[in-house]
């Protein structure tokens, strides 16, 4: 059990992120949950690369045991890509706020339903 502690922490963070994404209607809150989920994936990748007694993978003559550098590289890429997608998601949220006046999922669905009912009554908009 104790050997798998890092995986359990990862799963806990992942699930909290997933829960925020599913349960909260606010778009910005959903994006925060998505970034929590993403951070748990960083942990999932980096934790197995650690070795007891190892040091950071910067070569020096006095050390011989290093942590695995490959997950670090992959996660560096993932962090930068994650911030780019977060920025794109926030831009979409701001745009939705411009169009609907709200960023709550329920209210947006309600507005969409109202528009549909209106179109059925009066025909499609030009």
């Amino acid at each position: 059990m104790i050997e798998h502690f890092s995986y359990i922490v990862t799963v806990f963070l992942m699930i909290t992120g997933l829960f925020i994404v599913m349960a909260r209607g606010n778009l910005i809150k959903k994006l925060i949950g998505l970034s929590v989920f993403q951070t748990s994936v960083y942990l999932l990748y980096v934790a197995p690369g650690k070795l007891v007694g190892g040091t950071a993978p910067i070569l020096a003559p006095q050390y011989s045991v290093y942590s695995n550098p490959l997950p670090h590289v992959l996660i560096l890429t993932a962090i930068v890509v994650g911030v780019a997608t977060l920025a794109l998601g926030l831009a979409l949220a701001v745009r939705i706020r411009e169009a609907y006046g709200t960023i709550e999922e329920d209210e947006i669905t309600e507005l969409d339903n109202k528009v549909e009912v209106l179109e059925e009554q009066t025909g499609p908009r030009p």
Partner: protein
Amino acid sequence: MAFAVLALARTRNLFAAVVLSGAYSFLMATVLVALDAVDVAMTEAAVGAGVSTVLLLGALHLCKSDEAKPAHRPWLPLSVSVATAALLVYGAMGLPDFADPQAPIHQHVAPRYLQNEVDVPNVVTAVLASFRGFDTLGEVTVVFTAGAGIIALLRRRKHKRAGDGQ
């Protein structure tokens, strides 16, 4: 870190949520230092805690900062989450132990990366720029696409505003 995340899930004030996610990112950076991933920790502190927080605050400035109360209790998402967690923990039990030197991750290409073939002491930099250079090129493409998308989204809004004014 667990407290920060749980508070994050509970709070309805979006400003508090943004500040908590910044604190969470710094905590994650310290955990990454403990796991010997110093480059990743530095990037996480700068990008995750810095740039992300600024972006979220900017978006909050343009939207309102309080979340509506949900109409019903989130039982369905909660049960789905718990079921997924149970499945993932069950799966994780089959993975190699923490810090096991015989784990497959330490047997494959990592020993070759650590032989210092490109004469750069920081192996992470060497792998990023040399062995996996195409990955970095793809990353730049993604960032460029995201930037172009943001400009396209927010620019249209300005045109529309100018049209409204006329």
